[in-house]
């Protein structure tokens, strides 16, 4: 397939033709050449055929991600077509963040976002800036277990500045003895802040844990005017 006789056109030329890119040759010349050169013809047919693949991609699953600066540091978000699947300020780098996503979505293209996630970025920054108290962003929790979804669903109903205990959440989902499991599920909340797991605290008045780092839980509660819950 490679290194055959034809040197008139590179793969890049044929690709330019297929993608409609500006190129250093005339379309008609290439078409004439294709008529005579089986090798280039084969390449052109194959590249053209790839347009079917473009359709399959355009209509299928994709994960988009976006990174931006927030008061919490470099912050990264990712979303499926159905909603946010990840919010993280813990990843040390873009690559680390991507590697984790790739691990989770092996068969799905993960691509950088152009403008579909700007609303999510804007809303988060407004929240940090105390100009927003609720998010209007869909989340996609379909990869989680039914129990996790129930826990996060109950947690999502807590409004700005409103807190509940792990026991409260356990009762709300009809599993009154599962407070510890609730804590674990919240610890694996992939979309912190949006699903406000920082609003769930211990019955004894202490804050409990926070996967994103306890200092961030404190900062979030402070943003929401709940200094009363903080000891420091």
């Amino acid at each position, binding site marked *: 397939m490679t290194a055959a006789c034809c040197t008139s056109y590179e793969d890049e030329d044929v690709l330019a033709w297929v993608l409609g890119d500006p190129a250093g040759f005339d379309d008609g010349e290439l078409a004439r050449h294709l008529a005579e050169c089986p090798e280039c013809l084969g390449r052109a047919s194959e590249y053209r055929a790839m347009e079917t*693949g473009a359709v399959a991609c355009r209509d299928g699953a994709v994960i988009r991600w976006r990174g931006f600066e927030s008061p919490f540091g470099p912050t990264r978000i990712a979303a499926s077509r159905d909603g946010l699947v990840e919010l993280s300020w813990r990843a040390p780098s873009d690559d680390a963040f991507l590697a984790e996503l790739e691990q989770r979505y092996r068969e799905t293209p993960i691509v950088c976002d152009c403008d579909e996630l700007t609303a999510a970025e804007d809303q988060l920054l407004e929240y940090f800036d105390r100009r927003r108290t609720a998010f209007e962003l869909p989340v996609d929790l379909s990869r989680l277990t039914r129990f996790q979804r129930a826990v996060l669903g109950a947690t999502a109903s807590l409004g700005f500045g409103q807190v509940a205990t792990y026991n409260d959440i356990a009762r709300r989902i009809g599993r009154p003895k599962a407070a510890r499991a609730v804590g674990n599920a919240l610890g694996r909340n992939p979309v912190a802040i949006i699903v406000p797991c920082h609003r769930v605290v211990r019955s004894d008045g202490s804050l409990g844990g926070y996967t994103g780092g306890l200092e961030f839980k404190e900062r979030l509660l402070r943003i929401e005017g709940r200094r009363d819950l903080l000891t420091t």
Partner: protein
Amino acid sequence: MTTTFQTTVPVESWSEEYGPELVRHVTRMLGTAEEAQDIVQDLWVTALRVEPDWGDGSNIRAWLYRVATRRALDVLASRKRRAHLLSARSGELAPDRPPAPDAAFGALSREAAAQVRSRVAALPCKQRDAVWLRWIEGKDYETIAERLGSTPETARANVYQGMKKLRGELAEIWNREVGR
């Protein structure tokens, strides 16, 4: 109630509605408008003869594109035409891009579509981003470069590298799916 044995295939109205764009599409592939017109003419005959199962109205266009494209690729693959036949007509090449092929190949099976996506998913990060933005979303290289923090030239190189990698694998899927 009248029962008439009329032609159930309104070829004339299709020809009017889809003819010009199909000719442009095939011309773009073949480089000659005349052959394209032949292929599209044949299409109406085929449509009358085979009465394919095109489902609801929107699929008619899809079916027409699919058959036309398959014919055009057959021609591309088999012809050993003299260069001068083409050279006389290169001026007729449609300058615009062919219509988006989504109309043409809605028929890629679910399995094949999943394979395509997993191939794209497996590309190195930069190539994947560039290929996606150019090939799938049709963004221009300035936009892509800005997004990726590179230059338009680099963005283009990334697209082409990724497309080269995908070529063989997707061609195989194409042959299996559309060449049947």
